């Protein structure tokens, strides 16, 4: 058979036995399977595009008469802002606790955090002086109290979501506070305002200042923190508010409850007694962790997974909830804190123990999320065994919305662009292309490349003495050429080159 000037060569690379570390495997469900309404009832909400929780908050702001205490980590909601400013114009004092311009990304590290932080800063600049804002980096709790001193009119809400676009899309839970909880959260707010805030934003004669440091509170002010009976985190020494430690409450919840333990969190610290407590529980109980697809949590997920915890992934999940059982009854704790020292130990955070109706509704939400969670975490998996879509660590952020799929076979054309010099390869040599990272998801990769065969130069001269050789020989200068004309000639040419003409080039005519 006559030889072609170009030739296509192929090689199959089998990845089936390769192990993938730290992956989310598709459960073949999606968040669209969440079959919940935003208002579970008048005491529990989930975030949603209808903004039902926002509407109820705005309704109460509009009805406020005295003052509003508002705490959030980030703010960016036009309608709530307008309601707050309208209230301020009516003479309702609006007090707010939040971080200032520097946002600690250990609390929130979504890819749009810079945009959210900028939105938050712009809000502060707009409203300073109309709303009295005090700030500190660790202020992370999210609640709003409306007329908290009025026994008749007071109302309050705790939210796992920041008061920004998180209210409309993230998996978040918001609850209405009961009267006693409003009392306690009011005390927490007083404490946050006078004792924990570090700077203040109000309009001074110099204009809207850049958060000057706060001065000491009046000496005769009654802040009453010692009478707060909610689990909260405060930066004061433990001994003073020992009964208020959110850290201990959470740890106690994890280790002292029984039955199935379900935890929903946004952040989880790996080397932390709370996380270790969860791993320990997995030896004897069914433990499920609902968590977002955050690469920074991967180490914790891996260790929890190895310990037997079922880690279910929901993109952007941000709600912080613990569900367990005590004496055969379900109990729950809804929090603003992540399972991290920055939240449970030194953050300004709040936890509410859920009972009765609110607990039932939150259980319903959590159960729904468990059933609908689109991803299951695996610390390692053989490619050959993976039969579903998978997400690999490090590609989650960029892959959001267009997930990487497992591919059975992949053809990779090698060209000058990805393998320079490939066309000039000698006939007898095959390339060894490096396996690229992206191909690690494929069970098999077929590499394909094209070789342009070398041609005998026109002015090469026949070597007369070659008549005893099996193939014709030519020479140009000192370069010897072995000429092949059929595919069957190639092995002969290679042998001839190996044995007698080491520097020769194999060419076609």
């Amino acid at each position: 058979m006559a030889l072609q000037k170009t030739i296509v060569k192929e090689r199959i690379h089998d990845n089936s036995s390769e192990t993938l570390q730290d992956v989310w495997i598709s459960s073949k469900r999606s968040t669209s399977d969440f079959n919940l309404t935003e208002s579970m009832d008048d005491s529990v909400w989930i975030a949603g595009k209808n903004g039902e929780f926002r509407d109820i908050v705005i309704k109460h702001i509009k009805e406020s008469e005295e003052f509003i205490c508002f705490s959030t980590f980030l703010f960016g909601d036009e309608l709530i802002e307008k309601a707050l400013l309208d209230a301020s114009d009516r003479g309702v004092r609006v007090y707010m606790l939040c971080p200032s311009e520097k946002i600690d990304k250990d609390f929130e590290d979504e890819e749009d955090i810079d945009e959210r932080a900028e939105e938050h800063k712009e809000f502060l600049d707009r409203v300073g002086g109309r709303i009295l804002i005090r700030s500190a980096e660790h202020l992370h709790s999210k609640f709003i109290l409306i007329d908290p001193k009025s026994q008749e009119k007071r109302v309050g809400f705790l939210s796992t979501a920041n008061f920004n676009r998180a209210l409309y899309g993230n998996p978040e839970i918001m609850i209405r506070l009961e009267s006693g909880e409003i009392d306690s959260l009011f005390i927490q707010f007083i404490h946050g305002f006078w004792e924990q805030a570090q700077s203040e934003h109000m309009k001074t004669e110099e204009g809207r200042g850049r958060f000057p440091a706060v001065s000491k509170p009046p000496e005769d002010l009654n802040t009453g923190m010692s009478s707060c009976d909610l689990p909260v985190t405060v930066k004061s020494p433990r001994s003073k508010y020992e009964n208020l430690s959110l850290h201990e409450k959470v740890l106690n919840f994890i280790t002292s409850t029984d039955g199935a333990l379900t935890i929903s969190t946004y952040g989880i610290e790996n080397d932390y007694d709370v996380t270790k407590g969860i791993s320990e529980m997995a030896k004897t109980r069914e433990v499920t962790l609902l968590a977002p697809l955050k690469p920074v949590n991967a180490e914790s997920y891996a260790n929890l997974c190895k310990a037997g915890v079922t880690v279910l992934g929901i993109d952007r999940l941000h709600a912080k909830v613990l569900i367990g059982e005590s004496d055969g009854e379900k109990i729950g704790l809804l929090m603003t804190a992540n399972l991290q020292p920055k939240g449970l130990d030194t953050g300004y955070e709040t936890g509410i123990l859920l009972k009765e109706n609110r607990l039932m509704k939150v259980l319903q939400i959590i159960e729904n999320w468990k059933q609908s969670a689109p991803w299951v975490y695996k610390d390692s998996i053989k490619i050959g065994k993976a039969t579903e879509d998978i997400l690999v660590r490090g590609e989650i952020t960029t892959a959001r919305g267009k997930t990487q799929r497992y591919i059975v076979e992949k053809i990779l054309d090698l060209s000058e662009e990805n393998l320079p010099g490939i066309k000039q390869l000698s006939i007898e040599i095959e390339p060894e292309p490096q396996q690229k990272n992206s191909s690690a998801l494929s069970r098999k990769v077929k590499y394909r490349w094209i070789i342009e065969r070398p041609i005998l130069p026109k002015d090469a001269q026949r070597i007369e003495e070659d008549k005893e050789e099996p193939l014709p020989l030519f020479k140009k200068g000192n370069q010897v050429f072995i000429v092949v004309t059929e595919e069957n000639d190639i092995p002969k040419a290679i042998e001839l080159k190996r044995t007698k003409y080491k520097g020769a080039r194999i060419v076609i005519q």
Partner: protein
Amino acid sequence: MSESSKLPEINLRRTVVVFQIEAIIEMQRQVDREELITLLRFGKETIDEGEKLTPKRVVEDWLIGFPVSSGKRLLRILEDLGLIQRETGSRNIELLPSPDTSYILTEEGQNAEATDILFMPERLAVAIQYVVDPLVPDRIISIQTHSERLKDLITRNDKGWNQLEEYDSIDLPEELEEIVGKEVTVYEGNRAGLAIIDSFGQRVIPSKPDSTIQLNLQFLPQQSPRLAISKNSRIHEAIIDKSLETQLEYKKVLLGLIRQIGRNWSEEKEAISVRFREIDYPQKMSFVADVPIANPELKDLATFENCILKKVPIAPRTSADAQKWYEFLIVEGIESYMTEGGFSDYAEKQKKNFTRFGFDLETPTLEEMIEGYSNIRDDNTYHPIYWFLNAPRDLSLGRER
């Protein structure tokens, strides 16, 4: 803010022209001649013991071993200086005294022996700087022994003034006539000495144009006025003429100056009575005002340069002024958060600033303050005081509504 008024320091200043003449003067100049004082002391002791002071006695008991002529010469020197005189009263100026000529101490001699201060007649060429100003009655600013022109003449001729006709001479300025016979300070380079001018001789006009000096008259409450004269960066304190002192009594001067500018001084409050609307922010805060006075004038002492009376106490003129002022201070002093109790204590403290003025003031309530500030809005933002008063009330326990 001070609770009691403190009257201000008054500093009046004017610049006066210094005139200068150069002159030859005869004067009694204080000298340091210890040996003559010792001899006088010896003479007094001798006379006090009932003995005679004679040349012979001097070399026998004081200048032991010296010839009697030494005693004669020494006593003759004292006689020439007018410190001793012959007991007989007669004196032959041509001859030295005899060994037994007996002397007694003159009044000057007794003074010199008692004070150790000896004046000797001297003829000096001096430059005299003087001013004509009622604050400097003795006129003289300085007498310096530096007139080179006249010094040269003295060495050539010491027989009298009339022979120096080759130089232009001027009449002695009238103002300097008064200093003859008075004690003055004469400078020789940096050395100063006391002298009494006996008479002026040749006078010539100054070689340099006149300069100026600053007269600084300072008054402090309950103190005598002080006059400082500064010249060539040196300041010395001059003595105020006794006859001036009574009219320069501090309070009279202060009131005179304040009336001069038409301000209303309250003797009872020891302050200028002011309307609240007249005063500026620092004055409201401090209860004192810097009061400028154009061309301040003191009776018989002419005018001075424009001055500013610093930190003159001011007081509200009427009860209405006091009330406005009080409310202003309450507002201005609120720089941070206050509880209701804290505000009450604070308002009382501010009220004490007005106690000495004797007005009955009304303290606004916290509610009134908050109400007032809820209507003060700039660009829709509340004044910081709105928050300072509201936040502690809202964000504290107790007082449920």
